[in-house]
C-alpha cells in the first residue's frame, strides 16, 4: 500500500509502464505520480506536447508515449522527483535510467554507485555514465546510470559507496607525504612506470627509498593498465640500502 509504506505497488507501476516495444524504441519518461495533488510543472515543462495540459490542476499527469522523446526536461522540473527517464535502447543487455538527485556529494561520471529500488533495497553496483547539472536555480542533478535491461524498471534511486577509499587522506609515500590521490592523478596524466612517478612526484626518493610505497604504486599502475603487478616495470635499485653519513664514508675503514 503506497499510503502505508511510501512504496508504490506493482499495480501502481503498471499503470505508468510503457510497453516493451515502446521501451525498446528509445528514451521515455516514466511518471510515477500516483496521488492527485494540485501540481502541474511537468505539463508546462514538456515542449513535445507529450504531457497533456490538465483540465484540473489536481489531475494525474497523462503522457503520450509516442510524442515523448525522453528529453528529460520534466524530470528536473517535477517538484516530487517522481519522473524518471528509461532508455532501453542503450544496448542489448543494458539500459540507462536517469534519476533526479539532490544530495551531496554528487556522483562523478565513471563512478560506481549502489542502485536502489523503490523501497531502497540495493540492486547492485552500477556505473554513472553522465551527470547533468540542474543549473544555478533548479539545482536538481540528473544522474544517468547504466543498469541491466532487467532492472530498467526497478532502479529508481542511488547511494554513493561510502566504503570507497578516500584517496586524499591515504598516504602512499610516508617520506614525502604523497597521497594515493596524487599517485592516481599522475597515472591518469600518463606517467606509466614507477620511475616516471618517482621523478614527477619524488615518491620513493625519500630516506626509505621506496620500501613502503614501491609496491603500492605498482598496484595502482597494474590496476590502471589492467595488467598483473608482476608486469609493472620495477625502478632501478641503487645503493645504498640505508642512509649513511657523509662523515662515515669520508672516514674510510
Amino acid at each position, binding site marked *: 500500500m503506497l499510503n502505508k509504506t511510501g512504496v508504490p505497488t506493482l499495480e501502481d507501476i503498471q499503470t505508468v509502464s510503457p510497453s516493451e516495444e515502446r521501451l525498446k524504441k528509445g528514451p521515455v519518461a516514466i511518471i510515477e505520480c500516483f496521488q492527485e495533488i494540485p501540481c502541474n510543472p511537468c505539463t508546462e515543462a514538456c515542449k513535445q506536447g507529450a504531457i497533456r495540459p490538465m483540465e484540473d490542476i489536481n489531475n494525474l499527469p497523462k503522457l503520450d508515449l509516442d510524442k515523448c522523446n525522453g528529453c528529460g526536461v520534466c524530470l528536473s522540473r517535477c517538484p516530487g522527483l517522481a519522473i524518471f527517464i528509461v532508455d532501453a535502447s542503450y544496448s542489448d543487455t543494458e539500459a540507462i535510467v536517469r534519476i533526479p538527485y539532490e544530495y551531496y556529494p554528487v556522483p562523478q561520471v565513471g563512478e560506481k554507485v549502489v542502485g536502489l529500488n523503490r523501497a531502497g533495497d540495493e540492486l547492485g553496483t552500477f556505473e554513472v555514465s553522465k551527470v547533468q547539472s540542474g543549473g544555478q536555480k533548479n539545482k536538481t542533478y540528473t544522474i544517468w546510470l547504466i543498469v541491466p535491461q532487467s532492472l530498467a524498471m526497478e532502479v529508481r534511486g542511488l547511494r554513493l559507496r561510502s566504503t570507497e577509499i578516500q584517496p586524499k587522506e591515504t598516504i602512499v609515500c610516508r617520506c614525502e607525504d604523497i597521497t594515493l590521490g596524487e599517485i592516481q592523478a599522475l597515472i591518469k596524466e600518463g606517467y606509466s612506470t614507477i620511475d616516471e612517478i618517482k621523478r614527477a612526484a619524488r615518491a620513493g626518493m625519500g630516506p626509505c627509498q621506496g620500501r613502503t610505497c614501491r609496491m603500492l604504486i605498482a598496484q595502482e599502475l597494474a590496476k590502471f593498465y589492467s595488467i*598483473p603487478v608482476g608486469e609493472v616495470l620495477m625502478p632501478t*635499485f*641503487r645503493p645504498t*640500502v640505508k642512509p649513511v653519513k657523509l662523515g662515515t664514508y669520508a*672516514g674510510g*675503514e
Partner: protein
Amino acid sequence: MKEIEILVIGGGPAGLSAATAAANLGASVLVLERDGKPGGQLVKQTHKFFGSKKQYAGDRGYQIGNLLIDECEKNPKVEVWTDSTALGIYEDGVVTAEGQGKHLKIKPKKIIVATGASEKMIAFPNNDLPGIYGAGAVQTLMNVYGIVPGKRVLMIGAGNIGLIVSYQLMQAGVEIAGIIEASPTIGGYLVHASKIRRAGVPILTSHTIIEAYGQESVEGAKICQLDAQWQPIPGSEQDLNVDVICLAVGLSPLTELCFQADCQMKYVPELSGHVPIRNESLETTRPGLYVAGDVSGVEEASSAMVEGRLAGICAAYSLGYGTDEAPKLQREALAELSELRAGPAGQKTVKGIMKLMDKGGAAC
C-alpha cells in the same frame, strides 16, 4: 678491505644456518647482522615451532634462535659482525656495509644473501596515524623490549603472522577487538586460529578496513564486509573502538641487494613478490651469489633454516670444501625441503618455485 671466503648477509635463521653449514665443511664465513644480536625474527617468536625434530620442532622460536647463535659462535670458522648493515653489492664484487660509524668493505669469494623479508603496506585513509604498526614492530616492542603498544588492537590479516601476533598480544595482556581478513578464508595455520577463537576473539574473513581515525593517534577504525568480488558491501560497516591497528598483510622478499647485484628477478605471487631466479643450489644468475630464506620466497622459519643450510653447503662445495660429504648433505637438505613443502600448506611455495624455475633459463 676484509677478504673472506663466504659472506652471509643477514643473521636470521637462514643466514645462521648457512654460516654453520659452510663452516662445518671448512669454509671461513663472515655474517653481517644489522641488529645488535643475531637471530632475526626468531628472537621475537614466543610460540612453539612446527616442523620436525631436524628443524627443532616443539621449541619456541627465540630458543631456536639462541641455539643457532650458539652453534655459530662456537664455530671458530664463523665471524659475526653485529650492528652492521650491508649497503651495496658492487660490480667489482665488493660488498659494503656500515658498522659502528665506519664504511666497511668486504671482498668475499661467495655471497649468501639471507636478508629476509619486509612488511607489506596497504592503502587506506589515515594509514599513517600513530598507533598503526607493522606486526613486526609490535613484536619487537613487546617481545624484545617488553612494552605493549596500547590497550585494544585491531589486527589486519589472518595469516600466520596476524594470528601469532594476536596471540602474543593477548599473552601480554592486550585486548584484541578482532582480526579481519580480506580473503574469504583464514590464511594461517588453523590451530593458531582456533586457539584465538576459543579465547573469545572474533576472526572476520571477507572484511577489510575502510579507514582509521583519530586526532593525533588512532582512536578507532571503520571496517566492512566484502562480497565475493572483494567489493565492500554497503551497510556492513562497523565502527571499532581501538587504539592500535596492527598490519599483518604479508611480507615481501627483501631483495634490494639482489636487484642491485643485477640478479635476474621475477615476480612470483606465490613467493610473495619479486625474487631472484636461482637454480637448485640456490645460486642466482649472478655467479657466486646465493639466496636463502624469505628473500628467495616468503615461507616459514623451518624451511628458511634448511635453505640456509643448503646454500651454505653449496657455496662451500663450490670453493672446493666437502668434496666427499657435500653432495650427500645437499641431497639431504633438498629432501628435507621437499618434505616440509609436501603437504597442502606447502603447495603454494612448490607452485611458486616451479614458476620461478620454469622461465629464466637458470641451470639446475
